[in-house]
C-alpha cells in the first residue's frame, strides 16, 4: 500500500489541470509578448488564467503577477517593497515561524541595513496582533506574516494584523502558499497589500507562482530584464504553467468546502487514533480545528529521532515529512517547533502528516498501524526515552 501524507510539501497536478495545460507546450507555443498570431493566442490564454486567479482572490486582473513560485513571490514582495520604500524607513516586522523564503529575504535585507523584528509566537504558533502593534516604530514600513504555517497548520489572524498595519499606514504582505485550497483566501476581506501563492501546493504545476499586489502599492522589480508583467517581472511568460495555475486555482476555490471538510475529517480521525494508541506524544499546533489547516497534523514522539520514523514509514510505503521538506538534510530541528516551545531533543522526533483531498480513512488505519509499531520499536532502542519523558512532563506543565 502506498500512502502519500506529504501534501504540504507538494501535490500532484490534477489530471484535468494537466490536460488544460497540454496544448500550450506544442501547439499554442508562442511567446506571449509576440505581436503575431502565435503570440496573441498565448496571451489570450495567459489573460484568461490571470482573470481566473483574480477572481479566486477577489481582486483585479491587473493586480496579479506570475512568478516562478512561492519563494520568488515572497522575495519579490518583501525585498521589492523594502527597497522601494527605504527612504521612508528601514524596519520590517515578521514572525519566527515564517517559511525560509520570507526569513531569508528578511536576513538579506538586514545585511543591507534594514532592521527586522522576528516576533515570538505562542505555543500553538499564533502571532499576537497586539505584539505586532507593539513592535511598530516610526521606521516600520512593512509587516509580513504568513496566512497559514506549513509545519503546524496555524492560521494566523491576518485580518486583524492587516487592520493594525492599515491604521499605521504600513504595508502588509502575507505568504498564503499553504492556505489556498484549504481555507478561504480573499484579499479584500483580508485587507492585505501583497500575497504569495505557489502552484504545486494546490494540485497545480511546479515552477509557477503568483504575487498579488494591490494597485498603487509600489515595489522595486526583483527579476530584471524585459518588460513582462507590466515591467515588474522579466522573463518569457511560462504559458503552460500560467494556464495550469489558472485552472488549479479555479478548481481549488470551487471545491474548497468539500475538500476542506473531507481533509479535516480524515485528519481528525488520524489524530484521535494516534492519541489513543501512543503515549508521550505532543500534538503540535492549534488544538482548535477551526484555526488550523484542515489537512495538517504534526506530532512529536518523545524519545526517538524523526528520520528513523520517517524511514520506517517510507519502507512501508507511507510518505511523510520530518520538519519541513526544505530543511530535510539539515541537522537543526525545525525552527517552527522550537519557536512554539518544543524542547530541542523532542523537536528532533517530529513528523508532519499532511493530508490531501484524496486521502482515505483506510490509509489512516494502515498508517497508524505502521506508526505505532515503529514508534514502539524505536523507543525500545532509545537510550534516552525515560529521561525525555521527564523533559516532556516539564514542558507540558509549563504550557
Amino acid at each position, binding site marked *: 500500500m502506498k500512502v502519500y501524507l506529504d501534501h504540504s510539501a507538494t501535490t500532484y497536478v490534477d489530471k484535468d489541470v494537466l490536460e488544460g495545460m497540454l496544448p500550450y507546450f506544442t501547439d499554442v507555443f508562442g511567446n506571449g509578448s509576440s505581436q503575431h498570431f502565435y503570440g496573441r493566442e498565448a496571451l489570450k490564454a495567459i489573460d484568461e488564467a490571470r482573470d481566473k486567479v483574480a477572481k479566486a482572490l477577489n481582486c483585479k486582473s491587473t493586480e496579479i503577477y506570475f512568478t516562478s513560485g512561492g519563494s520568488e513571490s515572497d522575495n519579490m514582495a518583501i525585498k521589492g517593497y523594502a527597497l522601494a520604500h527605504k527612504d521612508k524607513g528601514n524596519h520590517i516586522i515578521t514572525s519566527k515561524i515564517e517559511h525560509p523564503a520570507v526569513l531569508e529575504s528578511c536576513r538579506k535585507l538586514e545585511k543591507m541595513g534594514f532592521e527586522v523584528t522576528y516576533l515570538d509566537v505562542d505555543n500553538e504558533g499564533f502571532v499576537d496582533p497586539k505584539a505586532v502593534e507593539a513592535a511598530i516604530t516610526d521606521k516600520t514600513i512593512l509587516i509580513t506574516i504568513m496566512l497559514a504555517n506549513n509545519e503546524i497548520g496555524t492560521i494566523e489572524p491576518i485580518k486583524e494584523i492587516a487592520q493594525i498595519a492599515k491604521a499605521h499606514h504600513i504595508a502588509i504582505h502575507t505568504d498564503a502558499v499553504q492556505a489556498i485550497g484549504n481555507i478561504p483566501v480573499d484579499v479584500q476581506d483580508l485587507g492585505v497589500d501583497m500575497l504569495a501563492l505557489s502552484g504545486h501546493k494546490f494540485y497545480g504545476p511546479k515552477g509557477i507562482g503568483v504575487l498579488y499586489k494591490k494597485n498603487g502599492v509600489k515595489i522595486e522589480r526583483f527579476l530584471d530584464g524585459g518588460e513582462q508583467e507590466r515591467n515588474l517581472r522579466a522573463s518569457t511568460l511560462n504559458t503552460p504553467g500560467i494556464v495550469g495555475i489558472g485552472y488549479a486555482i479555479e478548481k481549488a476555490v470551487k471545491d474548497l468546502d468539500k475538500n476542506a471538510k473531507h481533509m479535516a475529517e480524515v485528519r481528525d480521525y488520524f489524530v484521535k487514533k494516534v492519541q489513543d494508541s501512543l503515549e508521550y506524544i505532543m500534538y503540535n499546533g492549534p488544538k482548535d480545528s477551526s484555526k488550523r489547516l484542515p489537512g495538517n497534523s504534526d506530532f512529536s514522539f518523545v524519545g526517538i529521532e524523526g*528520520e528513523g520514523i520517517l524511514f520506517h514509514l517510507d519502507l512501508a510505503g507511507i510518505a511523510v515529512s520530518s520538519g519541513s521538506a526544505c530543511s530535510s538534510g539539515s541537522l537543526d530541528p525545525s525552527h517552527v517547533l522550537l519557536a512554539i516551545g518544543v524542547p*530541542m*531533543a523532542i523537536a*528532533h522526533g517530529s513528523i508532519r502528516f499532511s493530508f490531501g483531498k484524496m486521502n482515505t480513512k483506510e490509509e489512516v488505519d494502515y498508517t497508524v498501524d505502521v506508526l505505532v509499531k515503529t514508534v514502539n520499536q524505536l523507543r525500545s*532502542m*532509545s*537510550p534516552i*526515552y525515560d529521561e*525525555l519523558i521527564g523533559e516532556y512532563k516539564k514542558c507540558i506543565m509549563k504550557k
Partner: protein
Amino acid sequence: MYNEEVIKEFQNLQNVGFLENNNAYSKIGNAACGDIMEMTMYINPETEIIEQVAFRTFGCAAAQATSSRATTLVKGKTAKEALELSNKAVVDSLGGLPAQKLHCSVLAEEAIKACIENYYERKNGTEKKEETKYV
C-alpha cells in the same frame, strides 16, 4: 538516498539492546543535535575478546545502520583490534553513505572507543561518572 545494503541493515538491526552484565559502557552524543549513542560490552578479561556487545541509539537511520554494522564488526575481536576500527571501514562495509550522513558513522566509532576506554578505566579503577547532557 540510502543504498540497498544500508536499508537491509536498518531493517535487520543487530545487537540492539542493553547488556546488564556489561563491563564496558559508553554513551556519547547530544540529543539536542539529534544523536545519542549508548554502547555496552562484555569483554573477556582473560582474552580481551569482545564476547558480547549491544547498542541503543536515538539517532537517524544512518546512525542506526552504522552502529549495528559496527557492533557486528567488533564482536569476537579483541579490544585492541576493535580500537582500530575506523568509521570509514564501517561505511565501506555498508557500501557507502550519502555525504551529509557521513558524520553519523563517526558516532559508532566514537561509541566503541569510549566503551573500550571505559573497560580499561574500570579495570584500572580510574573510571569517573559523567552526567549526560541532552537538552
